């Protein structure tokens, strides 16, 4: 096996060192505008929100709030709002799940099977964005209303009882959320599926993997960046949403966003801020755990 020795010698030479001292500045320059923007409109409000969450809750807009490092705010709000808080996470989890179940096959079909209809179908996915979030959700209110055709049809099919309704139920809220956030799931999924080299899928078939196994061992792992991006883009905004719960639900379907919104309007800044911070922290922790797991798991 002497010829193999020659092969070893054929391996690549170490990459040449790249001169990069001049490039450093370019990087910083490019960071500057966006960095300033974020500082102004993200970091500053964030700090003031964190500060507000520690104000004395007995203040009011008229008398002003005093910074008393009142950490008790967090304990109190959690005691009062644990249920809508948990509900928010639960609803957005369901929403993410339904979006994934609906969105993956859709994105897959557009990326792999649509051929020359690809762009048209993508345009259809984005089409709802041409009207505002609020108006779309309002029209769902009409769609799911007690004498709308959806309820009639479901009653006729005996899926709903004679007194059954869709509006003002958990189903309505989660359906609305799913509808509203579906494009955020589909687009990143499409982008990552579209990028997959079709020869990799052929290679799977060539190496004795049937279509399902090829999907499981090649397509799915390669689309994981899209799955992660899509689930985050769905879960995070859904967890903070209040429009769907407000228009399609009842106080029983209240989400934490509704409470935060109500508290802010009522001038209860410290409580509202403490709830916001808690929600943010919960999301950050969940996302970190999730991304870490999705990143290392081999899925095979």
């Amino acid at each position, binding site marked *: *096996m002497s010829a193999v020795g020659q*092969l070893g010698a054929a391996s690549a030479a170490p990459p040449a060192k790249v001169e990069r001292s001049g490039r450093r500045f370019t990087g910083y320059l490019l960071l500057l505008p966006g960095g300033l923007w974020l500082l102004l409109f993200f970091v500053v409000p964030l700090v003031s929100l964190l500060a507000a969450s520690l104000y004395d809750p007995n203040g009011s807009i008229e008398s002003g709030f005093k910074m008393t490092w009142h950490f008790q705010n967090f304990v109190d709000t959690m005691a009062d709002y644990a249920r809508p808080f948990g509900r928010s996470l639960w609803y957005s989890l369901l929403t993410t799940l339904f979006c994934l179940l609906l969105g993956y096959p859709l994105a897959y079909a557009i990326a792999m099977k649509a051929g020359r209809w690809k762009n048209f179908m993508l345009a259809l996915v984005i089409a709802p964005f041409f009207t505002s979030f609020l108006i779309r959700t309002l029209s769902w209110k009409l769609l799911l209303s007690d004498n709308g055709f959806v309820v009639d049809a479901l009653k006729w099919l005996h899926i709903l009882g004679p007194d059954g309704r869709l509006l003002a139920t958990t189903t309505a809220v989660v359906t609305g959320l799913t509808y509203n956030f579906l494009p955020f799931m589909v687009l990143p999924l499409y982008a990552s599926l579209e990028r997959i080299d079709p020869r990799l899928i052929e290679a799977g078939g060539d*190496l004795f993997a049937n279509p399902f196994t090829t999907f499981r061992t090649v397509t799915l792992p390669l689309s994981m960046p899209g799955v992660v991006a899509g689930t985050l883009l769905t879960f995070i905004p859904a967890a903070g949403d209040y429009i769907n719960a407000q228009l399609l639900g009842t106080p029983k379907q209240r989400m934490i966003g509704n409470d935060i919104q109500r508290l802010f309007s009522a001038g209860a800044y410290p409580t509202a801020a403490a709830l916001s911070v808690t929600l943010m922290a919960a999301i950050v922790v969940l996302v970190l755990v999730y991304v870490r797991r999705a990143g290392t798991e081999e899925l095979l």
Partner: protein
Amino acid sequence: MSSDLVLNGISKQFSGQRAVDNLDLTVPSGSFFALLGPSGCGKTTTLRMIAGLEEPTTGTIRLGEQEITGLRPYKRPVNTVFQNYALFPHLDIFENVAFGLKRRGVKDFKPKVEEMLGLVELSTYGKRRPSQLSGGQQQRVALARALINRPQVLLLDEPLGALDLKLRRQMQLELKRIQTEVGITFVHVTHDQEEAMTMADTIAVMNGGVIEQMGSPAELYDLPATTFVANFLGQSNLIRATIIGQAEENITVDVHGRKVTVPLPRCRVTEGDVWMGIRPEKVFIAAAGTEQSNGSNQLRGAVVTDVSYVGVSTQYLVKLPWDQELTIFEQNTGARGTFGVGETVDLHWLPTHTFVLDADQDAHAGVEHIDDPGGAG
């Protein structure tokens, strides 16, 4: 063993065009078979039909006793080394090579993978990702990933196309060695005639969706069947001629008024207009007026128009009286004199080095460079 790969009347029609046209092909079991042809002639399509990645429009494919025409790719005892390797980017080298064995439920795959990585000299690379390897190393991973499954036929689609020249020459020898060692049938697709000649036992020359000629490298080179093969495999001088007679085992052709003899078995046609062909290195240059007594064919009154010295040989361009230029390679053995530009010379060559092709073909078919002086003026 009777596990020859047999393609019978295989055609592939894409919406716009016919990529492969009524192809008949037998690849003997255990051989190193090259499918040689210019880009776009249907090589990849043919290979994909054997792999099951493309369905033939007509025809059948058999592997030994089994007909595999309609069999799904994952059920065929055939593996492919893809044109740009198609390694799984999300798996490390070990997992890439193990992929096929795992899918077939082989339990004890670890030692096999390690052995295979050893065979391609990548034992220490198992934990790396494909993107961390050089082109040559990726090529070897692709080979290992296919070969580990011990397919009945290994399909290689321009496997060396992305490598630089030096590495390509090394890998040619390497592939040939591995093929001899494992004894698996290799079907090797390439557009590089030198690569096909060095590696293959049998070459099928493909052009425009059909096989022009099939045979050993020496057979194809010595006696091409078409002008395309004559030009695509090495170079040829093709001169317009007319058959004027047949005597015993020889044909006599008229070349612009001079008589030339060609053995009958070396003639594709036996009457009418023809292309008479001679390889450049088979022609000898002599000083004008030299008599040849050994029954050589002769053309007199050629003028040297260009001389390039390339070390082992000298390449001459000579112009014949009817203004056609021929290419001639003379070995620099030192035993013969050299000629200068403008000198008038005689050309001679053996009848057994002459071949005769049908004149209904383009004399430039298969010429790789436009300025190649291979054909008739």
